[in-house]
């Protein structure tokens, strides 16, 4: 029994010694060192820290086990094995962190897409509403324009009526103007008839139309030179003139005397006056109303030709009967 006990004690001591011999290992292990430094690198990475905390913890645990094995002096193969496991745990932690970071990116991108689509839809709705608003505004505007157009139409109708009335008035005025024109034409015809009548009556006499009226010139053949006594030859001309007054008793005439420039101017005025009076006397004696006649003495003024020649002087010696134009004759001329 005692022997067995001693044997047992010896045995255990030997076993311990054998085990001690087994664990006679170096303090460092290259594989473990590498695994540790990789773990430390991962552990210092905030992304791995925050996104793969559990995986990092398992790597840490594996590292501790490996280090314990090393300090326990476990066989190299075992420490290498544990270092390998640690290394793989570190790799898993890093991969996991990377996966989760990528998933976050996916989520972010999806969120961005959703936001973009939402923004797009919001824009589309806004656009649609704006278009609707524009359309409504446009409609309102068109309604207003329609109203304005209707008012304008009404106004135009009114204007048209006014214009028609104006037209009717104008037609009436035109008719009136036509009538007036016809009247005027009739007047002209009458005046022309009268003028031509006068012309007919005074045929063969020296007659010209002036602004003052119809002028009949009696040459100096009626008088002896320097005298105011009508010659008998003048009688036929006087009859013709008197006949004019007989046919148109309302006629008025001015009898104007002229001389040439021979002799005293004052005497010439006096002579021309006497000759005019002689003609007037002759006409009155033939029945012309004296208050329809008047005389004027011009003397040597207003010559009709040059006084330098005998022929000119003869033309200047004259008596002119100026028939005062009657109302319509003057106005129409």
């Amino acid at each position, binding site marked *: 029994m*005692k022997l067995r006990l001693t044997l047992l004690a010896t045995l255990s001591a030997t076993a311990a010694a054998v085990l001690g011999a087994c664990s006679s290992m170096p303090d460092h292990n290259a594989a473990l060192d590498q695994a540790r430094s990789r773990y430390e690198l991962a552990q210092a990475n905030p992304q791995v820290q925050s996104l793969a905390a559990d995986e990092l913890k398992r790597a840490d645990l594996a590292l501790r086990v490996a280090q314990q094995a090393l300090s326990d002096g476990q066989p190299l193969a075992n420490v290498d094995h544990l270092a390998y496991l640690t290394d793989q745990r570190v790799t898993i932690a890093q991969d996991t962190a990377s996966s989760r970071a990528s998933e976050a990116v996916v989520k972010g991108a999806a969120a961005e897409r959703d936001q973009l689509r939402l923004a797009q839809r919001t*824009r589309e709705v806004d656009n649609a509403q704006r278009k609707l608003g524009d359309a409504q505004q446009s409609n309102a505007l068109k309604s207003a324009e329609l109203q304005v157009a209707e008012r304008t139409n009404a106004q135009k109708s009114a204007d048209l009526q006014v214009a028609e009335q104006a037209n009717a008035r104008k037609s009436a005025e035109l008719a009136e103007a036509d009538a007036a024109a016809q009247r005027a034409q009739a007047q002209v015809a009458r005046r022309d008839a009268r003028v031509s009548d006068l012309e007919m009556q005074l045929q063969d006499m020296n007659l010209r139309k002036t602004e003052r009226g119809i002028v009949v010139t009696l040459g100096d053949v009626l008088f002896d030179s320097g005298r105011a006594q009508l010659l008998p030859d003048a009688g036929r001309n006087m009859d013709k003139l008197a006949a004019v007054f007989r046919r148109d008793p309302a006629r008025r005439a001015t009898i104007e005397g002229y001389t040439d420039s021979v002799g005293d101017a004052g005497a010439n005025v006096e002579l021309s006056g006497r000759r005019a009076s002689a003609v007037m006397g002759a006409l009155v004696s033939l029945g012309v109303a004296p208050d329809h006649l008047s005389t004027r003495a011009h003397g040597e003024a207003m010559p009709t030709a040059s006084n330098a020649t005998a022929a000119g002087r003869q033309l200047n010696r004259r008596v002119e009967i100026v028939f005062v134009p009657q109302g319509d004759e003057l106005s129409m001329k």
Partner: protein
Amino acid sequence: MNTLHSTRTTSTTLRLALACIAAAGLAACASAPVPNEQLAVAEAAVQRANSTATHELAAVQLQRASGKLASAREAMGSKDYERARRLAEQAEADALVAESHAMSARSRLAAQESQDAARVLREELARKAPL
């Protein structure tokens, strides 16, 4: 006392026994329990990791895990249980690495794709509505 004496008398026997014990101790040092559990875990891990995605994105890691699992089985066959246990444990770790590697690669691709999609959408919207 008696005992001591008897010990001394049996010193040769003792030395012999000691040598035997030392040999047994050394054998104990190298031997280990049969790692059935570790092998099962490793097999499950490798099987789980053996997906199409892992084949495509972490072929090297997956092959390493499979290779170690095969080696573990081999070690089991030759009753080298310690080696079988380590290989099984490494095979499991390798399978996990293959999985995490494939997942991170896939996520990276997905991130790239979704960023591209967002960029395309942004550009399209910007073209559609430049205001």
